[in-house]
């Protein structure tokens, strides 16, 4: 969801984000009731077909799966050992199909469209006193600051390497925590200065 979005004008790009999210949600639930590997395989093919419909090169598809390869492999091995081949195949097909479908949704939807769709979806929660635009706001803030936190972590790591400390997670976490907390203070200040305390809520 961070920088996956690829601008485009394909049918999938033009499809309302709400529709895409509902399809994703229903597929996510639905696939867990399917245990036939052929049906799952067919579904995976459909998803791959959708990728080409969105005009995303298929190389990109493999690139998205690569970081997950280890997890998928471990999961596969565990399934084979514990439950057998068929079950392993079913689990892996299901997971890969869903990951690819979810990635596709993010690739073809602009973040703020996605956030407005979630804001609309959350509007019934108003009954319980929740404010949907606040939920949306928290999501946006998260998207904004994850890359920044990663940047800070890289800075600390570089500084430590310069002083001869190679990977040490404790030595990374503590200064990162301090930095992030200080950043949070500054962000809160900036939000005040930019009028978050202004209207709408009151």
């Amino acid at each position, binding site marked *: 969801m961070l920088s996956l979005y690829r*601008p485009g004008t394909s049918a999938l790009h033009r499809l309302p984000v709400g529709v895409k999210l509902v399809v994703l949600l229903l597929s996510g639930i639905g696939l867990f009731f399917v245990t036939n590997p052929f049906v799952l395989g067919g579904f995976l093919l459909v998803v791959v077909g959708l990728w080409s419909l969105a005009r995303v090169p298929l190389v990109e598809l493999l690139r998205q799966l690569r970081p997950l390869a280890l997890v998928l492999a471990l999961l596969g091995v565990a399934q084979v050992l514990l439950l057998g081949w068929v079950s392993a195949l079913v689990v892996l097909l299901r997971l890969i199909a869903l990951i690819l479908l979810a990635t596709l949704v993010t690739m073809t939807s602009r973040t703020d469209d996605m956030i407005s769709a979630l804001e609309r979806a959350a509007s019934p929660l108003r009954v319980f006193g929740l404010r949907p635009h606040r939920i949306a706001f928290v999501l946006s803030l998260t998207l904004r600051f994850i890359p*920044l936190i990663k940047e800070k972590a890289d800075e600390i790591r570089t500084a430590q390497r310069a002083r001869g400390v190679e990977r040490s997670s404790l030595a990374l976490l503590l200064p990162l925590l301090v930095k992030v907390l200080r950043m949070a203070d*500054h962000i809160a200040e900036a939000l*005040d*200065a*930019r*009028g978050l*305390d*202004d209207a709408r809520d009151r």
Partner: protein
Amino acid sequence: MFLFEDVEHGYDERRVLHGISVELTERRIAVIGANGSGKSTFARLLNGLQVPTSGRVLVDGLDTRSEGRAVRRKVGFVFQDPDVQIVMPTVAEDVAFGLKHRGLSKKDTAARVVEVLAEHGLSELAERPAHLLSGGEKQRLAIASVLALEPECVVFDEPTTMLDLRNKRRTTRVIAELPHQVVVVSHDLDLLSDFDRVLVFDEGRIVEDAPPARAIPAYLDLMAPC
């Protein structure tokens, strides 16, 4: 427009500002001083981000202690590090952020965003994720987002400290061309050479208050290594 009356400010035991009484009406005002001299705190008192421990700060007659929100509408604030000031994931959304919270309709917000982006040469970056901008672009976005809200006065906290020479000059020009009243906290003496008034801070007090021709030499004197 700004009036400080016997302002003292401290954090816990530590006093950072002592007996500040000053009226700021000039169009271009600079605040200079060593690290830890209290100038950053002074800047934050201008728009009620902090309220004084004692004394009061009035902006057009509004007390920052009780009318903080109204004051912040009048006084925009550009922070030193644009990274903490940019709060939305993409450029256009960040400009829209403050407008939305002003209660502007979706349509009006979108129109204003297009206008502001064009004014600041950011149009082609509208959809760019904020974390992929260069330092100079981030600074431009931070300034654009503040000006989008049409404040009457803008406070800049060390606006050029993190920039390279080209962006420093660009920011200097942008500030010079603003029709607003401007208060700049800075170490960058080039930036403020043609300002109307310079306040020099030292250990929480204003030790010089004069046009740049007199204040800058006083500051250099103060900073001379002993």
